[in-house]
Every structure is written in structure tokens, then in C-alpha cells.
């Protein structure tokens, strides 16, 4: 019982929290499904141009029901591009987190578990990484090596591991002196066994929260890079690229940037709500 609160008040706050988490989960789940089943859901080919019907507004703003969200500057169906864009955002989000998570967790667990010199080195690498201006370096890499989806994922994956490393390091430090680690050591378990089977599962829940934060960040950064023209290459329907391509028309047809921007906003909000819910759950567990 939390002091100073009536029972029903606490229940009310908890319920609202659960509702927010569930809402976040719902958004992420829907976007994931839309991404997976994009070919079945999209009413048109997202790459098919129709130069006779360019920048047609959405159906409720005077457009036609054939292109429910209107068309872009090349007459491509906006709804279909938005649906395929979900695929790109989710792909970037998930694969970047897998890459950066692997790097960050490895570094953090090693530093946190062994301490001493090893930890000094890990901390130094983290500090160096944080000192490097993220967007600038990502843009330069893409400019030099040529833009592609794979390169964007790799670049972001190689840059966004810092928070994983920091959290993995602190949580590993907390568990390394606990009894079950000592017990595993005493029973002759190998180092790999201790790190992978004893340490990792016990810090995993914290890393899951970081994963949601980083996934949201990766999706926003991809959109930013694509918006600046050095991310996912045209004609792929990245939401950031759609905003960049619509920018010249935004004064007369603001919806060209509102539609993909709103999609981006809702997805990132959903991921963050989910992450916040996970964090609260963790805190409740600890109390």
C-alpha cells in the first residue's frame, strides 16, 4: 500500500498505467502487422506513378475515394506508401536494436562483470562514442558509402549502443556479487555459462526497456536521415523521405507532410508508452 493514498486511488492510477501500456502495445502491434501484411493491405502499388493525378488531397478533403489519403507529387497512392513505410520503420527499428543491443550489452556486461581495467576501457569507449555527433556522422557515412536500407541499419546499429552499454554495465555490477553468481562459480560453471545463463537473464528486463527507447530513437533517426536526403533512398516509401518529398508542396497541401509525420509520431509514441509501462512494471516488482 502506498502511504497517503486510498486504495481505490492507487488502483485507479495503476489501471490508467495499464491502459496506457496496452495502448502502446496495440499501436506497435498494429504497425508491425501492417508492415508484415503490407502487400495484402495496400490498395495500390506504392511505386506506381500516375502523373495525371498528382498531389490529390485525401478523400475527406475533396479527393476521391480511390486514393483515400490522396497521392504524392508523382501521383503515387499515399495510403499504400504509408502502409509500405510501416515496413521500413519497423525493419529499421528492430534490426538496429538487434545490432546495437549486441554491441552495447557485450561491452556493458564485460565492463560491469570484470571491473578494473576492463571497466576503464569500456567507460572510455562509451565516452568516446557519446562525444561523436550522431546525426552528422551518420549522414557522412551514408553520403560516402551510398544510401541503402542496409547501410542505414548498420550505421545506426553501430552508433546507438551507448545506452545499452551503460545500463548493462550498472545492472551487471548490481548482480555480480549476488549469491547465485557465487554459487554458480563454486559449482564450477564456466565463465561463458555464468555470463550468458546467470547474469544476462537477470538484467534482461532492464535491457528490454532500453530496447524500446532505442527502437523509438532509431525510427526517428532514420526518418531524420531520410528527410535530409541521406537515409533510405528514393523511391522507397520511408515516412521521413515522404515528408522530404512533400516539403515543396506543404504550403498549399499541408497534409502531404501531416500524414507521414502523424504516422511517425503515433508509432514512436506507442513504443515509448510500451517502454514506460515495462519500466513501471519493473519498479513495482522491485518494491
Amino acid at each position, binding site marked *: 500500500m502506498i502511504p497517503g493514498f486510498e486504495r481505490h486511488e492507487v488502483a485507479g492510477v495503476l489501471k*490508467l498505467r495499464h491502459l496506457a501500456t496496452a495502448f502502446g502495445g496495440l499501436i506497435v502491434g498494429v504497425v508491425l502487422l501492417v508492415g508484415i501484411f503490407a502487400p495484402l493491405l495496400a490498395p495500390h502499388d506504392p511505386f506506381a506513378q500516375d502523373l495525371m493525378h498528382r498531389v490529390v488531397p485525401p478523400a475527406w478533403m475533396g479527393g476521391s475515394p480511390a486514393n483515400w489519403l490522396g497521392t504524392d507529387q508523382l501521383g503515387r497512392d499515399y495510403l499504400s506508401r504509408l502502409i509500405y513505410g510501416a515496413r521500413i520503420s519497423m525493419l529499421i527499428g528492430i534490426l538496429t536494436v538487434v545490432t546495437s543491443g549486441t554491441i552495447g550489452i557485450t561491452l556493458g556486461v564485460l565492463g560491469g562483470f570484470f571491473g578494473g581495467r576492463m571497466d576503464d576501457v569500456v567507460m572510455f569507449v562509451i*565516452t568516446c562514442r557519446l*562525444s*561523436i555527433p550522431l546525426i*552528422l556522422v551518420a549522414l557522412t557515412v551514408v553520403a560516402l558509402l551510398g544510401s541503402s536500407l542496409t547501410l542505414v541499419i548498420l550505421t545506426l546499429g553501430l552508433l546507438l549502443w551507448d545506452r545499452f552499454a551503460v545500463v548493462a554495465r550498472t545492472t551487471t555490477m548490481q548482480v555480480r556479487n549476488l549469491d547465485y553468481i557465487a554459487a554458480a562459480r563454486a559449482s564450477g560453471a564456466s565463465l561463458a555459462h555464468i555470463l550468458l545463463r546467470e547474469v544476462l537473464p537477470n538484467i534482461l528486463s532492464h535491457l528490454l526497456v532500453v530496447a524500446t527507447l532505442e527502437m523509438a530513437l532509431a525510427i526517428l533517426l532514420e526518418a531524420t536521415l531520410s528527410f*535530409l*536526403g541521406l537515409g533510405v533512398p528514393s523511391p522507397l516509401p520511408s515516412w521521413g523521405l515522404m515528408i522530404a518529398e512533400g516539403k515543396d508542396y506543404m504550403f498549399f497541401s499541408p497534409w502531404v507532410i501531416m500524414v507521414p509525420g502523424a504516422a511517425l*509520431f503515433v508509432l514512436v509514441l506507442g513504443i515509448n508508452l510500451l517502454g514506460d509501462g515495462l519500466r513501471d512494471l519493473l519498479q513495482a516488482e522491485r518494491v
Partner: protein
Amino acid sequence: MLIFVFRRAVLALLVCVTVLVVSFALTRLSGDLAASIAGPNATAEDVAIIRKNYGLDRPLTRQFADWAEAAASGDLGRSYLYHAPVAGLIRVRLPVTLTLGVSGLAIALAAAIPLGILAAMREGSAIDRGIMLVALLGQAMPSFWLGLTLIIWFGLNLQWLPISGIESWRGYILPAIVLAFSAIPALMRLTRAGMVDALSADYIRTARAKGLSRSKIVLKHALRNAAMPVVSIAAVQLGFMLGGSIVIETVFALPGIGYLAWESISKNDFPVVQAVVMILALFYIGLTLLADLMNAVLDPRLRAS
């Protein structure tokens, strides 16, 4: 204390050197910088001429040593695009970026600290939840999209503010707000967490028992302790914000170093890219060093570690 300062300074120096190497290596990533500069339609002779003229035919270590030596004396090389010294290009544009960064941070602090205090004082209430929801919404907002949206609203529909350039100080308003938006959620959460901790501390109970007024307790006793992490994070945030200015400056066409960097990257002007990466990294390293030292002065416990 002296040992702490010395250790931190040495660490900062090591980080500087590493970042210098990285920013140099970065521009050599493609393997052949001369071919990148020449573009896809250049002949082999063109590439060879460029390689010779820009000194790219020398060994990499030699190139790095020359560049680092010149950079140490303030010579950052010549821009391929502007045919002018890079240091001069940056010097003209740096005030724009710094003005943007500092005003963005000021707006962020002015919004985040009162809101964080308010949320902490009413922890668990509807106000608290409302404020935290705003933080979540702010976090999810892509800054370039927010920028474009504000341009449409305030620049075009209402015509209150200029939408690009910096003919007057009013040109900074929208970009600074957008930049502030990215820093507000983190600063607000931190203020709130610090205040929640501070308000439940023993010395607050003592102050309350002494019969001090609520506002005095919050502002004088709790805030002083809660403010410390906020101040140090604010310094670090400024470092991040200067790095993030590349997006804002491009959206609002502000002639700062972020815009310069974007232009140089898209036009293969690598001496400029290298220099801007270095300058932004140095700012970040300097600001974090400052934050650490400030914390150590304020809290003697930190000096021991």
C-alpha cells in the same frame, strides 16, 4: 580535488585524440576520397589530378599527422567548395549555432524546471500525469516535422514569425522552440525525479517540523538538492543540441555550422565535414568536463570516486 581535476582532464584529452582519429578516418571510409570528390562521371586522369592536388596520394598516417598539426595551430584546411579556409567559414557561422543552442536550452530550462517541480509536488495526481504525458508526446515528435508544422502555422497561416533566415532576432524564435522541445522531456523527468527524492528526505521533514512555509521548503531546500543533476545534464544537453542543430538549421535555413555541415556532406566537401565533426565533439567534451567539475565542486562525495 586537484587529483580529480587532473584525472578528468587527462581523460578528456584522450577522448579528444580518439575523436580526432575517428573524424579523420570517417572521411576516408569510402576507400578513395579523390574518387568521391571527383564524382561518378570523372575520368581516371581527373581523379589522379585531384588526388595529387589535395595531397591524397600521401600515406594516411602522413595525411593525419599533417592535418592534426595544422588543426592544433588553428588551420583546419581549405574548403573544396568555397575555396576558402575552413576555419574562417566556421568562425562566421558558429555564433548562429551557439545563439540557437543557448536560447534553445534557456527555453527548455524555463519550461522543464517549473513543470518538473509542479509534477513532483503533486506526485501521482492528474496534474502530474498530465505533465508526464506532455513529456511523452514531446519525445515522440520528430523535430524536423515539428519545425515544418510550426512554419505552416506561425509563418504561413498566422504570419506572426519569419519562416527562415535570421534577418532579425525573431528568426531565432521558431528554431529555438523546436530545439528546446527535444530537450524538455529529459530535463523535466530529471527535475521531477530529483524533487520527488528531495521532498521525501529527512531534512525536508525537519524543515516542515520547524514550520517553514511550503514554498520556502520547495524552492529553498528541495530545489537546491534537486537542481544539481539538472544543471549537469543541461550542460550535456547543450552538447547534444549543438549536434542536433544540423536538422533545425536545415529546416529553417539558418546559416550556422549545422547547415554548413549538411551542405558540405551533400557536396563532398570533406575538410569542412571533418572540421565540424571535430568542433562539435570538442564542444561536447568541454561541456561534459565542465559539468563533472561543477558537480564535484557542489558535491564533495563525488571527488572520492
